[in-house]
């Protein structure tokens, strides 16, 4: 099935097993080592030290001769090659002796001596042919390895007292020290040979987190390497400025991290004309927890990576909220000063928007969507893996901003200029972090669009797709069109701040309001990006739990598309008091009000879906019902905000905070909880604890309302938002809100306990615990590694409940399948 897609073109693809190391090093582990030698080693080393010094000079000359030869003739002369390899061998044996790896004195020779415990052999390049460019660039290309070799060497030097004392007292070198030192020696020798153009293959360094961390270090060094010379040439003082290097590193280091992780390996190999490793999906599935920390192209693994990472950031954002509410519990300053508080609410919002809500929907869809359309994976699995790994980089960057001099970014997640262009370096952690999060989002959306358009199972027309697929299709359209605008707005800020541009300098031809227009042109569609997938989840859950088809399926799909289109026409409702031209306000009010119509259609359709159904009121259903209630309240306050004079009064007050939390927490987060509980059996193969689930729901529902409902009141009364301190008159409500918020935060622990304990030891889940018709429930829980053993054929709609014998998809070939006509759908 999917393994058969490996191309037969032998020249394009590398063999399945990698080639061995170009330089072989074997070391015999000694049994006992001499105490006397341990003490007198350094004296005995002196003759070899002299020899090594002399040889080093000779070696420099012969190595350069080698480079020149390669550059001019494209060949490495054999005698010269043998000589240089011999010198390297000599050095290796001296190193081994000096570093307590062997007690046998290093011979004064470069020849290959099989009886000596340290044996090194290099692979003569085929016919002596070495690419010409290596004559000039081999040392540069080898830098990542030679630098690491230096680091390892220094590490061995610093730890040398361990083998010394160990041999002195026990006459044995601990095994782990021996392994570390032989590993280091091998790496030094291989890196050096590669750097000297003696061999054409770099030392093995498998792409994994360790290599990625090393990439991070190289990225920082690279940033310094380009920043310092440029500053010197431009006469910027001080020439070595840590803030400037940091700024470049924020852009470069994450990219180096991804290269180290192997995220770009395939494209690098392909672009350089070398043999690529075929994607035969043999890496699919996760056999241990370690697989989740590598590049993995299985959409199910990526889905879980996304979801777990996102929930980690939910916890971080939630803890920040607890700190904020602790400070706001009473007027005056208690725990944090103004600057820290401003940083707290800025990071709170940024983390929860870019690292929780947007990616968690991507994660759930990543897992469920291909299964739901009968596909073996996403259209672009490698891109999928890369898009996941961009996310922790963005999140760590935003959190690290707290350690920056001057504090974290403190201009709100909206980062208005000129406050953000004049801010300390912490601001840049947001400016650049958002770029990585945005890139991740766009890649995923592209992937979804192509997958949905091209990889649906036979028989699945657009009008037979489950609404979750429609919802993610619509969301992906929003993402690919809108996200470049927030990237643009942040690039403007970056350029203004780092290079002295004047996009937002009022006196120099800049326009402060332009930032807001460009920013909100993304950030309004962003709120639909954060809601539409949730709508899809609710449609799935309500249909299954009411045992009824979705009412008005076609209008549900059209209303999603209507929200996508209209979502681009309303951005300036965030700017009614911004001082923009006053005539824009009226059309924006009208478009904002109109968006309530397709949203209303969805709400009423959901209600009609439940009507006369058979309602199973378990945890996912409870969250879906809770969502309906909370989202209607959020929607009503939203319509109020469309009305210009009301918006003018409550802009930038706690009324807005109430509205956004009703739609994002009561809206999006409730759908996320519903979806996680609903697909938990499919993703983990276990059932969660239903009683704990219900407890989680009720605690959340009650204390969510207790926390955020009063905010409407204090906002109308005059309490502004983004304030560390407030007027005495609001003290009572703020205390009530803070206490409710603490219980709300605690209720998350119930959820965490349920999920973790069920994942580890919950009862095994059947393939289809909810008796759903959609395709993902027709395979085992969790699904087979390649999803479907037979490609399903879709013969009917996804919600044919109430029709005895109706099916959505079957697992016969299309010839054998007899189509069940989809029931006439209104209108």
């Amino acid at each position, binding site marked *: 099935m999917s393994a058969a897609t490996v191309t037969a073109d032998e020249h394009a693809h590398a063999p399945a097993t990698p080639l061995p190391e170009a330089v072989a090093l074997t070391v015999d582990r000694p049994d006992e080592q001499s105490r006397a030698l341990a003490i007198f080693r350094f004296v005995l080393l002196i003759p070899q030290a002299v020899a090594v010094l002399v040889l080093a000079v000779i070696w420099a000359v012969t190595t350069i001769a080698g480079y020149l030869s390669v550059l001019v003739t494209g060949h490495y002369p054999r005698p010269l090659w043998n000589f240089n390899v011999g010198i390297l061998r000599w050095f290796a044996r001296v190193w081994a002796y000096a570093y307590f790896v062997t007690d046998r004195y290093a011979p004064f020779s470069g020849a290959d001596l099989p009886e000596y415990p340290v044996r090194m052999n290099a692979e003569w390049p085929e016919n002596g042919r070495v690419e010409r460019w290596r004559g000039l660039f081999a040392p540069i290309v080898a830098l990542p390895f030679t630098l690491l070799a230096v680091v390892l060497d220094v590490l061995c030097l610093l730890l040398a007292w361990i083998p010394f004392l160990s041999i002195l007292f026990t006459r044995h070198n601990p095994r782990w020290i021996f392994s570390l030192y032989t590993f280091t020696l091998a790496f030094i020798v291989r890196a050096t040979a590669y750097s000297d153009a003696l061999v054409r293959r770099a030392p093995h360094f498998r792409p994994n987190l360790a290599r990625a961390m090393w990439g991070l270090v190289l990225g920082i060094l690279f940033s310094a390497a380009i920043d310092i010379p440029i500053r010197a040439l431009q006469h910027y003082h001080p020439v070595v400025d840590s803030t400037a290097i940091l700024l470049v590193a924020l852009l470069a280091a994450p990219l180096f991290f991804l290269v180290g992780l192997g995220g770009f390996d395939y494209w690098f190999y392909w672009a350089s004309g070398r043999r690529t490793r075929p994607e035969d999906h043999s890496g699919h599935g996760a056999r241990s927890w370690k697989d989740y920390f590598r590049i993995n192209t299985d959409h199910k693994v990526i889905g879980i990576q996304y979801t777990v990472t996102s929930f980690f950031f939910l916890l971080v954002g939630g803890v920040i909220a607890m700190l904020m509410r602790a400070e706001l519990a009473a007027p005056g300053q208690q725990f944090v000063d103004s600057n820290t508080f401003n940083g707290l609410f800025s990071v709170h919002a940024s983390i929860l928007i870019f690292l929780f809500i947007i990616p968690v929907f991507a994660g759930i869809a990543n897992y469920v969507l291909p299964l739901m359309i009968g596909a073996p994976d996403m259209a672009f699995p490698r891109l999928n893996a890369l898009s996941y790994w961009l996310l922790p980089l963005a999140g760590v960057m935003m959190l690290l901003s707290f350690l920056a001099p001057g504090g974290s970014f403190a201009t709100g997640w909206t980062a208005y200029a000129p406050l953000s262009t004049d801010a300390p370096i912490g601001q840049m952690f947001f400016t650049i972090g958002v770029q990585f999060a945005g890139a991740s989002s766009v890649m995923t959306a592209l992937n979804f669009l192509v997958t949905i358009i091209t990889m649906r199972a036979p028989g699945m027309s657009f009008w037979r797709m489950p609404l979750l697929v429609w919802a993610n299709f619509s969301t992906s359209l929003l993402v690919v069109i809108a996200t470049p605008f927030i990237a643009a707005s942040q690039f403007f800020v970056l350029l203004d701040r780092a290079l002295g541009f004047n996009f937002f300098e009022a006196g120099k031809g800049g326009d*402060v309001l332009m930032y807001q227009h460009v920013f909100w042109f993304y950030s309004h569609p962003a709120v639909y990006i954060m809601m539409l997938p949730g709508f899809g989840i609710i449609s799935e859950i309500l249909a299954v739990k*009411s045992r009824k088809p979705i009412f008005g399926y076609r209008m549900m799909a059209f209303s999603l598309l209507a929200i996508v289109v209209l979502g681009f026409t309303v951005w300036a409702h965030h700017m009614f008091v911004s001082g923009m031209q006053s005539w824009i306000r009226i059309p924006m009010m009208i478009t904002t009000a109109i968006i309530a119509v397709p949203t209303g259609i969805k709400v009423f359709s959901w209600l009609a879906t*439940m009507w006369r159904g058979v309602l199973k009121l378990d945890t996912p259903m409870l969250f879906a019902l809770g969502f309906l209630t909370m989202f209607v309240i959020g929607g*009503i306050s939203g319509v109020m905000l469309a009305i210009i*004079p009301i918006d003018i009064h409550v802009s930038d007050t706690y009324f807005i905070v109430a509205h956004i939390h009703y739609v994002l927490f009561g809206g999006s987060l409730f759908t996320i909880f519903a979806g996680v509980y609903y697909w938990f059996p499919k993703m983990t193969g276990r059932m969660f604890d239903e009683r704990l689930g219900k407890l989680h729901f009720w605690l959340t529902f009650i204390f969510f309302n207790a926390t955020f409902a009063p905010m409407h009141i204090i906002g109308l009364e005059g309490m*502004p938002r983004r304030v560390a301190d407030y*007027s005495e008159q609001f003290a009572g409500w703020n205390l009530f809100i803070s206490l409710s918020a603490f219980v709300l935060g605690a209720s998350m622990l119930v959820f965490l306990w349920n999920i973790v304990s069920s994942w580890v030891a919950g009862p095994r889940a059947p393939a289809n615990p909810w008796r759903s018709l959609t395709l993902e429930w027709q395979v085992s829980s969790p699904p087979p590694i390649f999803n479907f053993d037979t490609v399903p054929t879709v013969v009917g709609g996804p919600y044919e409940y*109430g029709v005895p014998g109706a099916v959505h998809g079957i697992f016969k070939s299309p010839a054998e399948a007899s189509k069940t006509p989809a029931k006439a759908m209104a209108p």
Partner: protein
Amino acid sequence: MLVIGLIASIIGIAIALAIDWFPPLASKQAKQVSDLFDVLLVASIPVFVLVEVVVLFCVVKFRQRPGQELMDGPPIHGNTGLEVVWTAVPALLLVGLCTYTYFVLRSIEKPQPHTMVVNVTGQQFTWTFEYPQLAKGKKFNAVQLYLPKDRPVQFKVRTLDVIHDFWVPNFSIKIDAVPGITTSYRITPNRLGNYPIVCAELCGIGHSTMRGTVHVVTPQKFRAWLRSQTAPPKPPPGTSGVAAQAALGKQVFTGSAGCGACHTLADAGTSGKVGPDLDQGLKGKDVAFIRQSIVDPNAQITKGFAKGIMPQDFGQTLSKQQLGDLVTYLKQATSK
């Protein structure tokens, strides 16, 4: 279900209309906005009640009963008529609301005759006001905002640094202060009293403390205040020399400089908590220190307080005479 819904809506609307959501309404415009809000509540509550009643009814009536575990509901896919209704009715409702709003907005923003212009300047972290048409061209910068009752005002709002927002909750209108442009709005205060001015756009570390007070007074009191701002300061009768200076300094402290908004000083009867308590902070300090802490506040910061919150341009906004009098007053008031 209909009956329950109707009763719930009526009760809900009654309660909502009875509650005073807005702070005490102190302008003509605020009353119109508050009325508009009431209209929105009347429109919204039945919508919410409708949705909730249906949800609760479904939960009660259609829940899965024992024995129904494998039962499905009827395969109803839609109903054209119903879908037309629930598309058209909200659309019409919203068109109606938007139209009504348009007229309210026009009424709120209509230019009035006899409008007085007040220039508002925001800076990190205070407001200053200027009355360009009054006082026969004698310029003065006020830190307090005084307005006569029932006189239409147009605020022209600017900023010296970043974006701020000039908002008086009791007036209900607000507008951002944006670098590079002048924004404005019109208001007619119609209730006597003192109301807070709040900055409603994040502007830095002092955003939550960037507050002021607007005093809506009778026209006579307003004229008297104007005169006191533009006339040369007169010491209270019967005092002379240092005592006179101190008395004038007290007027600066409690009046034009508005120090009491942020500082506690027993002698002046102020209790601001934003900045250090002057009774302790200036006790025993010499005149040079007091002067520096006014004109260069960031030079020495009291423990527990932050840099960059006290305006740094009092050296310019106060005249030399005012500054001298103020220093004299503070030395005297804190050495008791």
